[in-house]
Structures are given as C-alpha cells and as structure tokens.
C-alpha cells in the first residue's frame, strides 16, 4: 500500500507537468507539428538568409537599392495597399451580405468566395488579362471611357485584389456571425440611427478582424506573382512588381541577389504580421477583459 503510494507520488512529481493534462498525446503532436514547421517553414527561410549572407553588406545594399528594384518596391507597395483597401471595403460588404441576408444561391456565393484560393494564380492571371485586355469583355467597356487596366498598375491592383479577397471575407465573416443581435437592438432602442449603430456598435467589434484580414491580404499581395505577371505588362519602372524582380534574378542565375530581395520582402511581411498580432492582442484583451 505504502509502496504504491510512494511510487505514484514519485511519478507524480516527475511528470508534474504532464500528469495534469487530460488529453493524451500532447508531446507527440507538438513534436510532429514543430518538426513540420521547421521542415516546411524555418529551414527554407534559413536557407534564404544563408544564401544572402554570402554577400557582403555593400553587395547586398547595391542589389536591394538598384533603381529598377526600388521602383518595383514602390509599385508593389502602392498596388498592394490599394488592393487591400479595396478588399477591406468589398470584403466587408461581401461578408455582411453573406451573414445578414438570406437569398437564393447564398451557399453558392459563399463557396465561390474561396475560388481565388483554389484557382491556380496563373489561371487567374490569364483569365483576368483576357477579360481586361482591350478586346476583352471588361476591357472594351473600360477603354471606351478611357480607362486602361491591362498592362498598367491598375491591372496589378485587380490581380492582387482578386487573389487575396478571401482573407478579408473569411476573417470578418465569423466575427459578424458571432455579434449579438441584442447589442444592436439595445443601440436602436436608445435612439441610435442605423449609421450610428454601425459606427459605434458593429464596426468596433469587426475592426480587429478587419485589420487582420486586410493585413493578410496586404502581405499576400506583396508576394503575389502568378496572377500579376500576365496582366501587369511588366514595363520596367512602371509595372514591375518585386516578386518579378526576384524571378528575373533567378533567371540570371544570380541566386544571391534573388534571395537578398526576397529576404527584404520576407522581413517586411513578418514585421507587419507581428505588429498586427501585438495590436490585436491588446485590443481584444480590452474587450474580453483579461
């Protein structure tokens, strides 16, 4: 009797952390997850940095500040910004319609939202260029009013917006579904107009999800390649995106330069995601009160 008690006390001490868990398999599942995270994410990233580290600081600086490359940063940042702002507005509208209203074909629309994720980006690019070229369905109409989309930065914005819209819809949608109708009813019973209810009650709850969605959409747009190259026209200093510059360096077998530019893009994306996460954590803590 006393021996068993001793043994269990000892093992209890040894596995103090583990014995409190109810679900088994924590160690195994965490191990596998970390292994794959390393294999698929960390290792290639390390390779990227290693490849870059072969360069001297001057070489690195020279590569990433090449005027044509710098121009591509501007184009990429501006178009990605425009695309994610558009997605923020349109994605919110789409999520709103999908959550708030019932209409025939709602399930279909809901499924179609994911299409940009499922579709190969090259297919998206070719489709877009067919539609927006001067002889295409949309291109004809737009050129009639003097707007050129294909082979201009506007085309880049459209390609980026198309491929990253699901981020906004899919982050805002669940939050919108969770909103309690009582909050809105309370606001209306207090005399608030519809606009005020949206601004003061609904939007503050959606805000964190929207920022996350827009940020994801933005970072995704920074790296978009397949959909863009077909529609962008790739005119130097006008409609070249950074991912294209990386691609061009690769075609020249200049791996070091390619990874130098790539690591810069990586850095920007990571900084953005981390800061969004920090901000959101703080905002949500206030709402949920921890």
């Amino acid at each position: 009797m006393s021996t068993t008690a001793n043994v269990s006390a000892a093992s209890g001490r040894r596995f103090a952390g583990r014995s409190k868990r109810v679900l088994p398999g924590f160690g195994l599942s965490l191990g596998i997850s970390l292994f794959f995270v390393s294999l698929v994410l960390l290792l290639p990233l390390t390779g990227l940095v290693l490849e870059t580290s072969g360069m001297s600081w001057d070489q690195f600086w020279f590569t990433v500040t090449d005027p044509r490359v710098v121009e591509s940063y501007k184009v990429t940042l501006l178009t990605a910004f425009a695309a994610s702002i558009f997605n923020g507005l349109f994605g919110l509208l789409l999520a709103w319609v999908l959550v708030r209203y019932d209409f025939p074909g709602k399930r279909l629309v809901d499924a179609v939202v994911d299409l940009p994720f499922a579709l190969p980006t090259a297919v998206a690019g070719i489709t877009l260029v067919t539609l927006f070229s001067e002889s295409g369905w949309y291109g004809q109409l737009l050129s009639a009013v003097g707007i050129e989309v294909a082979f201009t930065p506007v085309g880049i914005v459209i390609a980026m917006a198309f491929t990253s819209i699901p981020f906004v819809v899919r982050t805002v949608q669940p939050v919108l579904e969770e909103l309690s109708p009582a909050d809105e009813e309370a606001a209306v019973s207090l005399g608030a107009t519809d606009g005020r209810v949206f601004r003061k009650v609904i939007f503050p709850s959606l805000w964190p999800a929207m920022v996350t969605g827009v940020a994801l959409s933005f970072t995704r747009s920074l790296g978009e390649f397949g959909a863009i190259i077909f529609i962008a026209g790739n005119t130097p200093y006008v409609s070249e995106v950074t991912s294209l510059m990386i691609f061009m360096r690769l075609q020249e077998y200049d791996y070091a330069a390619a990874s130098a530019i790539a690591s810069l893009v990586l850095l920007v994306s990571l900084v953005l995601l981390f800061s969004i996460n920090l901000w959101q954590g703080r905002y949500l803590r206030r709402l949920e009160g921890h």
Partner: protein
Amino acid sequence: MSITIDQISKNFDGFQALDEVSLDIPEGKLTALLGPSGSGKTTLLRIIAGLESSDGGRILFGDEDVSQLHVRDRNIGFVFQHYALFKHLTVAENIAFGLESLPRKQRPSKTEIQRRVDELLDMIQLPDVAKRYPTQLSGGQKQRVALARALATRPRILLLDEPFGALDAKVRKDLRRWLRALHDEFHFTSVFVTHDQEEALELSDQVVVMSQGQVEQVNEPASLYARPESRFVFDFLGQVNTLSGAVRGQKLSQADAWVSLPGIQAEGEAQLYLRPHEVQLDRSPASHAKLPLRIESISLIGSEVRIELTPEGWQSNEIWEVGMSHSEFARQNPARGERWYAIPDVGHLFLAGANHPRSVNWQYPSGISASNQ
C-alpha cells in the same frame, strides 16, 4: 404613461406566438408578464418595444398609437437578459450612449451629459466604475449599468426582458429588491418578463399570466395567488394538491376518499384544487372530508414544516404537500410512514368542462361563494 395593447397577434412560421392579446398596463406601476417558455411573453414585450412587428392589432402609449413607430422613436428603455452592454465602451460611455444618440438639437452639452452619467452612477450605487469596461464588472453590476443606460434618456416606459435570468440566486434577490426600491422612488411605468412565479409575485404591482399566446389572468399578486381563475394559473403558481373524482349528492368521491361539497348542485366529473396552506392534517378524518394520506417526507428547513404525502386507497397525479407551523409540528409530532387525514379549509372546484373554479369553504359554511366571478 399607460400602455394599451389592443388585439395584438403574432405568427412565427405557423406558430401562433400571440393570439389577439388585449391588455391594459397602468401608468407608474410595475407589471410582470409571467408564463412558461413559449407563452408569448417575450414576444409581447418586444412588440411593445417595437423590436418585433405584430401581424395585427395596435399598441398605444397613453392615447398615442405607436404601432407604426420605429423603436428608436418610441422613447422606451429596454433591458436585456444578457445585458447587451457595448463591450468596447466604458461604463460611462455606455450610459451616455442614449444621450449622445439624440438629434443634435436635443442633445445636451458634454458637461450636461457628464453630470447625468454621474447622477445615474450614483443611482445604481456604482459611482466608481465609470472608467471600467463591461467585462470588468460582475453580472449584477452589468445589469445595473444596463438599467442606468436604459434610464439615461428618461424614457416613457421601461421594459425588462428576464432582467435577472442570467444572475445567480443571491444576486438575483438583491437586485430584485433594489429594483423594487428604485421603482417606488421614481414610479416609471415598467413591464418585465419572467418565468419565475416568486419573482413576479414579489416584485410586481400587477401580474399578467400568459399561456400559449393568450392572457390567462391579470391581477394583483395577492389576489392572483388566492383566487386563480383557471387550472393553468393554479398549476403554474406554486404547489397545488388535487383530488379528481365524481360529484354526486353534494359529495366528491374517489375510491376511499371523499369530500362533502355543501351547496354544489352539479353532478359529474370534477377536480378539487387545494393549496398547501388551505389544508390541515389530523390523525382522524373530519365530518366533511376523508382524505387518507401516508407521510412520505418531512422538510424542516424554512419558516414552515413542509410535509409530503401520498394518497392511501385513492389516486392523485402528484404528491400532496401540506404546510405546518413548527409549533404545531412539535405538538402533533407526525412521523414518516404514518397515516394522516387531510382536512381542507378552503378549496377550489373545477367541474368538468368549466374553465373557472367554484370556491368551497368548509370553515365558514355560510360563506360559500358560488364563484369567483
């Protein structure tokens, strides 16, 4: 502001939630809408508020027909079961919400709003929480803030939807008492929905009992308990002991049990309803009733001893319950398993097919009243 509900109906996809309900809610009184779930009480409250539209009928505040008026123009205060406070706003901002929603011309100045918020925080006895967020408050505090928010614009009518439903028993009792005191001080016309009989009877000036989309009875709490007008109200409000049987020759009997019914001429199937406090226990039957029962359990906790009994030699759908004072209990000393006889003082007889009971009084036989009506 009194409220008149005139033939309000509401149908949800084939479910008749309200069936031509008409009701008058007096000014300055606290009225309870009481009923089981699905009785339509919450729907009625939401229709009064304008959060739900009715299929037919009118709602009047005073003499004004508000049926077509939007919620925001009805000038009501509404308190929700789960508080519905705005999580991203501080307590002060929550309370000020209604004032800041007023059209620019009617909106008070910033300092005026500030003053009113402070005043309301004092009223709800939470002067120090102005800068906190709702998640930092307890359930009872949240509901007080919700109430202050609803009262900020000085609404004509205060509507509360199960306001204590999400709180635990102790807080619920405190808040109930506090709301009653607040009401006695300010006398706003208020309507609250509840499924808790005790809450309705303790808190309100007038109780509206609802069942299946209809009003069963409207009365003051004391009259409602003493004179229920239907089987439903009887069953719904507190414990009741029943004897079902046949009436023949001014006597209701079933197997070994019988009760004399002086003055009742009708014959046929009938049910006698007896409240626990309308029955006494004795070791031998009385001249007007023989109701043999066996004691099943005795509960000593409370201001009264509660004795549960099962019929002996006859049937009843539910266990009987009789209350006895502690001094009486000490004198008589009943014990579990013993056979006792129930001696009714006052009873309520439902004849077959009748919706309303007839009172029977054995204590003062001269005082037999034919009916409540």
